């Protein structure tokens, strides 16, 4: 079964034609009959209490159906646990419309429902709300001494490991030493599709919910617990998601609002948020980091200290792994990693693409560049000299690690050997040229996942798993795996996802979907294949008699003997010959606990960046990027490349543009729109090369998949900042690297 017809091929997306014709339907696009429209109203204050909501004034407008707020929302689930979703952090989740207290600016405080969207929008802007205002505190910069170490609470968060060696002493004795603070403000995910839920009311408490989410089951569990629905009543569908980047990991408040309104009004309701309201939920937290490094005379790292402090809300302790990576990316025997939160009056932060690692790698990789310069070593050579052969945090071997190959192949493609070390020493005409390098590491995770496979008498295979495709290519790679496993053409296979009536799949996050759903699809297809072989062996005159599953291969629509491939049975004929309409298999894939515990499972990357800076204007362009990624087996180089291209754009964006600017006077992000919250446009993006250094790894999971959605972002922002230093001699440690900082 080693022949590969589909896996590893650069195939077009199977959902491509639907997406380019407008046929792919997103959450706000299910125009069910008799639909009412809800528009959320956001608080104008950052902290205080609602005294009065003047709902009567807008209820007088013809066509306005209801104003929902804490003044009239019925009593719902009481305990915090009912509001906790799969990735809720510690603390007490925010409950929309269930109290007079305002905890952050733009908190949803009412929902206006009307016959048309236009009416609901109009009325929502007229809704008068009286508040008692309290003094808010939104400035993390004043909290350096108020940090606390969080308790446990969120899936996937690991407290920093205990210090190893004697970092304080070794830092004091180091030949060369650097220390600096690195800062970035809050950043918002801003997927192109705004959060929306269309809730079709089917009588009594029965609902079909079309939700924008990264996990239909997470949304289902949430509304079941909060509204006391059963599974049948809470049917959630999410076939297409217009970008997630982590923002759809937790159920957002429009889901609560749309379900509430549908149940109360006994009518179908859609609630769509505005772009401005996309800034009223989770975000990558404003983070202050301190890094201190020292070297020995031979250029090896003597000691490393990485500290991070980031914001969280007053009501939940959001956590992410910021500093842990610094203890495993380089060989170093004296390490101290510390991590703290501080509470301010904002919405709870939320996982945003490569949460923690994007942040941590920015600081660590800038500091490594500074250290290399201080020690007089080329930044790439410095990283190679301190290459980690083992994961020192966990004291385990890596299941596979080809980061060294990433450095070499990336450097060769980029032409790193032509770099001159002196800042400002490279030019292109009047432009300053800078070359920077950085690197990253990310978890190769896998989660329990179920799938079902059905072969019908016409030879068509349908595989179901209630996962999601936020643009990652899930539909396509799962079709490839299923087609490969049962030796069918792509056109004979349909993979479906995004429906809570399907076998349960985990949230789409953590870069674990390809591994989790992929291995589940492989397993269930193998199970179906075994049944199919048994059925084939009942056919008259067939040549597979006595063969076990290991003795045969599924190729080109046939089951054939490994020992003599001319001895074959056509798969299409098997069901008909046995008088069967269809053959089904269902299975739940469980990760191998031994392999998961014994090895350190990680993907790595090395990124090389060229910037050109106009010394008179301070304008910076990222003219070239080479990103070399080692992330196990690549299922589809075309969709995988797109993921890494997108990651590079994200890294450039983080380095040069993104910041949610808080006006502390109002306690509100003041650039809460696409015009002032900058992300790259086409003209900002130049040459990007993606290299995959394939790793064969049977320990990480049977298919050897590590996941590719996040690792490509790591180090990009640092490499840009390092390149800017190489071009100008200016160290910018406070993102984004903007014109005024370069000009100062």
């Amino acid at each position: 079964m080693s022949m590969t017809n589909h896996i590893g091929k650069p195939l077009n997306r199977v959902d491509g034609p639907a997406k380019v014709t407008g046929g792919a339907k997103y959450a706000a696009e299910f125009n069910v009959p008799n639909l009412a429209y809800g528009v959320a109203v956001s608080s104008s204050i950052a902290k205080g209490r609602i005294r009065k909501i003047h709902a009567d004034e807008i209820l007088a407008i013809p066509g306005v159906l209801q104003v929902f707020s804490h003044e009239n929302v019925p009593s719902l689930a009481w305990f915090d646990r009912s509001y906790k979703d799969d990735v809720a952090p510690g603390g007490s989740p925010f409950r929309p419309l269930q109290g007079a207290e305002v905890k952050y600016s733009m908190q949803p405080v009412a929902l206006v429902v009307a016959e048309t969207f236009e009416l609901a929008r109009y009325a929502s802007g007229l809704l008068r709300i009286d508040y008692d205002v309290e003094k808010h505190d939104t400035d993390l910069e004043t909290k350096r001494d108020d940090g606390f170490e969080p308790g446990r609470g969120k899936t996937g968060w690991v407290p920093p490991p205990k210090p190893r060696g004697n970092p304080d002493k070794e830092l004091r004795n180091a030949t060369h030493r650097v220390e600096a603070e690195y800062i970035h403000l809050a950043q918002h995910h801003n997927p192109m599709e705004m959060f929306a839920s269309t809730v079709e009311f089917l009588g009594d408490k029965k609902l079909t919910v079309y939700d924008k989410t990264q996990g239909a089951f997470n949304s289902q569990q949430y509304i079941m617990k909060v509204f006391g629905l059963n599974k049948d009543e809470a049917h959630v569908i999410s076939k297409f998601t217009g970008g997630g980047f982590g923002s759809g990991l937790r159920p957002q408040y429009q889901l609560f609002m749309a379900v509430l309104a549908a149940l109360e009004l006994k009518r179908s309701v859609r609630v769509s948020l505005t772009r401005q309201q996309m800034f009223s939920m989770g975000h990558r937290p404003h983070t202050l980091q301190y890094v201190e490094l020292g070297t020995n005379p031979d250029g090896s790292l003597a000691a490393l200290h990485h500290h991070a402090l980031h914001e969280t809300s007053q009501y939940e302790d959001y956590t992410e792994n910021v500093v842990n990576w610094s203890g495993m990316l380089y060989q170093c025997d004296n390490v101290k990693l510390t991590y703290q939160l501080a509470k301010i009056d904002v919405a709870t932060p939320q996982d945003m693409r490569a949460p923690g690692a994007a942040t941590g790698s920015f600081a660590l990789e800038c500091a490594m560049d500074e250290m290399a310069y201080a020690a007089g070593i080329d930044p790439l050579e410095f990283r190679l000299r301190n290459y980690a052969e083992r994961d020192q945090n966990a004291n385990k071997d890596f299941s596979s690690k080809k980061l060294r190959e990433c450095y070499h192949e990336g450097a060769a493609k980029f032409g790193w050997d032509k770099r001159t070390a002196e800042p400002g020493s490279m030019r292109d005409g009047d432009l300053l040229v800078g070359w920077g390098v950085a690197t990253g590491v990310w978890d190769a995770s896998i989660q329990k996942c179920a799938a079902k496979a059905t072969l019908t008498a016409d030879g068509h295979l349908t595989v179901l798993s209630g996962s999601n495709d936020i643009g990652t290519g899930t539909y396509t790679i799962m079709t490839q795996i299923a087609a490969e496993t049962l030796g069918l053409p792509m056109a004979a296979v349909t993979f479906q996802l995004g429906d809570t009536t399907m076998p349960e799949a985990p949230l789409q996050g953590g870069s674990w979907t390809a591994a989790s759903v992929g291995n589940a699809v492989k397993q269930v297809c193998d199970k179906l294949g075994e049944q199919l072989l048994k059925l084939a062996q009942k056919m008259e005159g067939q040549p597979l008699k006595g063969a076990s599953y290991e003795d045969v291969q599924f190729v080109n629509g046939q089951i054939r003997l490994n020992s003599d491939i001319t001895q074959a049975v056509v798969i299409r004929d098997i069901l008909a010959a046995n008088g069967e309409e269809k053959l089904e298999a269902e299975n739940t894939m469980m990760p191998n606990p031994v392999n998961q515990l014994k090895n350190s499972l990680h993907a790595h990357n090395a990124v090389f960046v060229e910037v050109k800076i106009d010394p008179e204007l301070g304008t910076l362009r990222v003219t070239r990027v080479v990103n070399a990624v080692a992330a196990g087996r690549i299922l589809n180089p075309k969709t995988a490349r797109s993921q890494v291209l997108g990651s590079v754009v994200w890294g450039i964006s983080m380095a040069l543009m993104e910041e949610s600017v808080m006006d502390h006077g109002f306690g509100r992000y003041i650039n809460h729109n696409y015009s002032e919250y900058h992300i790259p446009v086409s003209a900002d993006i130049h040459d990007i090369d993606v290299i995959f250094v394939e790793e064969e790894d049977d320990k990480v999971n049977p298919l050897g998949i590590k996941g590719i959605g996040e690792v490509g972002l790591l180090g990009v922002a640092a490499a840009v900042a390092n390149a800017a230093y190489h071009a100008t001699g200016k160290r910018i440690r406070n993102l984004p690297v903007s014109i005024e900082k370069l000009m100062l």
Partner: protein
Amino acid sequence: MSTTTTQASLGHPAIAPPPALGTVTLKINGVERQLEIAPWTTLLDALREYLDLTGTKKGCDHGQCGACTVLVDGKRINSCLTLAVMKEGADITTIEGLGTETNLHPLQQAFVDHDAFQCGYCTPGQICSAVGMLTEGKAKTTAEIREMMSGNLCRCGAYTNIVSAIEEVLNQPKA
């Protein structure tokens, strides 16, 4: 010590009644469609909410992202920044009018072949914008394509492949 404030106080006390519905006739993808809408309905909402033409996307509702790009008399516009009633008598083309899944427009095919999208949400706007740009005939080089496609945001960061897809169609020999 607390103070008090009131949100939306400008709307008080006089709340203007909403405008009455009227009949608007739009020619979309070659077909005349009649709808009963209030005059403050945007072309974007008319398409999505009243005509079930949901291929045209809403990404910001403020003319900042380009997801709602459609062609009006062959020219690309942001349909969120125009009222439906203003486009009576115009020839409106949406993504649904360019091609079908079994008969793709050359740009739609190029977008699929070059993997010029990920989540797909900005894609119809990108394609309509590219059709409009090619009609304008000003973009000849890669740099010009990048510049003239910069009104269409893609948060997945598919720009590299979007530009390759457009270049392929731009460089195709004319039949």
